[in-house]
Structure formats: structure tokens, C-alpha cells
């Protein structure tokens, strides 16, 4: 009991302890923030690097242009924009899980024999860009 009272009355060394504790808290907080930010940034990079999509087929139909996409990467892919001749076009939403494949239907009025530059952009910024000629 006496020892406890002495300990409570003893004020020597309080400042160094407080400073150490504060420094530790600041260091932990700062580094936790840094670690979280690093995780978020690298996870995003990780997903961008894992994206791979190919266009298996392009079919010019009476309704527009149908493009058959296959996800050959390691993450799910969502098509966010389609450009034909550098102009944004409307399309049916398409999300492909890993190894999934399906038709992307683009509303576009094409001309027989025409050559079109197509740019399909995913939500992470991956692009499939190529020229496609319509059969005459």
C-alpha cells in the first residue's frame, strides 16, 4: 500500500514517458496510414495489371455492331466506354468475370465496305483498339 502511494506521488520521469508514448502513437498512426494508402494504391495497380481482354469476333449486324469479348485476365472486367471512329457510342452493359465471354452489343449505323476504328475501354482503363472493315 505504501509502495503504491509512493509510486503515485513520485513525479520524476513523467515527461520522458509521455514523450515516448506520444512519439510511439504518432509513429504507429502515421505508418498505419502509410501502410493503408500503400495497400489501396498497390491493390488498384494489382487489378489494372491483371486485366486482359480480347475481342474474339466482330459482327456487323442490322442492329449495330456485336463484339465478342473474352476475359483472359485475372480480374473481372467491366466495359465502360466504346468509341467507334473516336466517337462514344451506346452499348449494352457488359461485365465479364474471369474466363467469362460474351457479346458486347454496340448501337451504331455502319456502311457496307466501311473501315471503322474501334476502341473498347474498361473501367480500369484497359483498351482494345483495332480497325475493322465491314464486308462489302
Amino acid at each position: 500500500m505504501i509502495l503504491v502511494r509512493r509510486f503515485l506521488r513520485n513525479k520524476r520521469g513523467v515527461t520522458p514517458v509521455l514523450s515516448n508514448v506520444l512519439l510511439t502513437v504518432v509513429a504507429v498512426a502515421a505508418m498505419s496510414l502509410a501502410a493503408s494508402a500503400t495497400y489501396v494504391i498497390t491493390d488498384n495497380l494489382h487489378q489494372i495489371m491483371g486485366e486482359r481482354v480480347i475481342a474474339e469476333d466482330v459482327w456487323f449486324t442490322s442492329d449495330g455492331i456485336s463484339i465478342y469479348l473474352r476475359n483472359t485476365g485475372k480480374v473481372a472486367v467491366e466495359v465502360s466506354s466504346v468509341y467507334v471512329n473516336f466517337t462514344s457510342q451506346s452499348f449494352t452493359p457488359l461485365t465479364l468475370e474471369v474466363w467469362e465471354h460474351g457479346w458486347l452489343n454496340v448501337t451504331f449505323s455502319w456502311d457496307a465496305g466501311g473501315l471503322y476504328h474501334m476502341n473498347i475501354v474498361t473501367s480500369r482503363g484497359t483498351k482494345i483498339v483495332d480497325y475493322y472493315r465491314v464486308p462489302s
Partner: protein
Amino acid sequence: MWTIIEYLRKFRRSSRGVSNVIVIVLSLVILVIIASNVILWSYQMNQLDWEKMQENLTVSNVVNVNITYSAWLTIQTEYQVNLGSRMSGTYIDTKAIDGDWETFQEESSPPTYRLDINGTFIIDLSTYSLSLIHTIEVQMRYRTSDTLEKLYLKAYNWVSNTYSDSDFNNTLGHTPSGYWDYYAIKFTTEWRDYVRDDGAMIIKLHDEKNDAVRTNLEVDFLGVRVVTSGAFFTFKNNGSLTVHVVSLWIINSAIHNHYDVNVFINSGENGTYLLGNAQLPSKPYFVKAVTERGNIAVYSPN
């Protein structure tokens, strides 16, 4: 010894540098995150791209495989009589066109005489793979005592769980002549709904409607047969890695037919694949083979 103990005591008492240690440890954590999430992943994806570049698949030939017919597959157990009765003979007598027959009679409830029988036929899937089947044919040789009857063949649709003839080439039924008649039907492209995954098919035979004459039906033969056809692909893997073909396309100006396949071709080897239930269109056309890594091999006949 005492010196070492003294140093350890000093080390335990000293609080200086604790935050430095924490910073270093957490910096190491950050480095591990970066290494695992970026560097290792980058290495994996680079390897994937490198493997894709190493692939070298060519489609060296594609030809149509002629339509072939299986032997007639006949019933293995006695027919189930739903309306009417079995008069004579057994199901054995319906397995061949040989002059031995099984006789059924319409039910006895005048003036509404009806007949309804069905039988189960099994397609041996170890011999006739479902993927190769183009269509299925059903044929019956029969004779009735009443020429005013009209008979209908139907098959059990395992998807809609009903007997149907909507996917037959002929849904008009067959009117008997009083002599031995042949009644044959062929499924359309929707035959798959009528074949269970184990190859079982249920064929039903019934008359058209109520009538005042109690008819005898003599069945000399009832059987089904499988029609197979397809497109035969020949691949050549010139690369140093095994190729996994996951998709085939047959394309001309009117069609863009896609088929999911699962073909592995070892490095340096030729591979073949029979794409069942597919026919090459008239020229000009071209075919594509897509690999799991994302390469596309294109073949166009001269």
C-alpha cells in the same frame, strides 16, 4: 558475462529509438505489401504475356464430316400401356422388321376407344456422344384394324416435362392404310430437350381422338437412331507450350457461330477435334480457334 548482462539491462531501460523501431517495422510491412501486390503480380502477368507470345497455333484443315446413322436402338423393356391393353406378343417382337409383332388393343370403354402406350429407349452415350449428335430419328412399322384411326408419335421433353411433338419435322401424325405402314419422324435442332443426360428417351404412341371402333394395333418395329455429323478440325501446335483451345468459330457473311470447346494440344503435336452438330457453310467462310491465353488462329479454305 557481467558486462553482457549490464548491456542488456541498459538496453531494457533505454526507451530511446522505440518509435524508430516501429517506423522500421511498419516500413518493412509496406515493402512487403508493395513487393507482393506489385512486383510479384507484375512478374506473374509478365509470365502470362510471355507465354501468350510463345504460343503458335495454326488451324491446318477443316472439313465437313458426312452424316452417319447409328444402328436402330430398340426398347429394352416392355411398353407401358396407359390406355388400352396388350393383346399378344412382347416387346421383343418390336425390335426388328421380321414379321413378328406385338399387338395392342384400344381400351374398352365404348364409345370412346383410346390407345396410349410409351416405351423407354436408351442411347449409348459411350458410343454416341451427345456433342456429336446432329439429330434423332424415330421409325415405326405397324398395322391397324381400322383405317379411320390416326396415330401420333411424341417424345418426352425433359425440360418442359411434357410429351410433345413440336420439335418433330412432322407433327401431322400418320393415317394407317390397313396394310403394313412406316411412320417415321425426325427431330429438329432442339432434339437435346428430349434426351436425358444419361441418354434416355421416352417415346409415346397414341391415337388422335375418341372413336366408335375398338382398334387393334400391331407393332412390328419401333426404334430410334442417332444421326451424327460435324466439322473436323486439324490443329498444329508449333509453339513450345501446350495449347488449350477454348473456343471455335465458323463464320461467313451470314453466320457467326460460336462453340465452346476444350481441346489440349501438346507442344509440337497435331491435334484433331470433331465439332459435332456443326456444318461448314458454303465458301467463302473462315474458322477461328481461340486459346485460353487469348491467341486466335484463323483458317480460310482456298
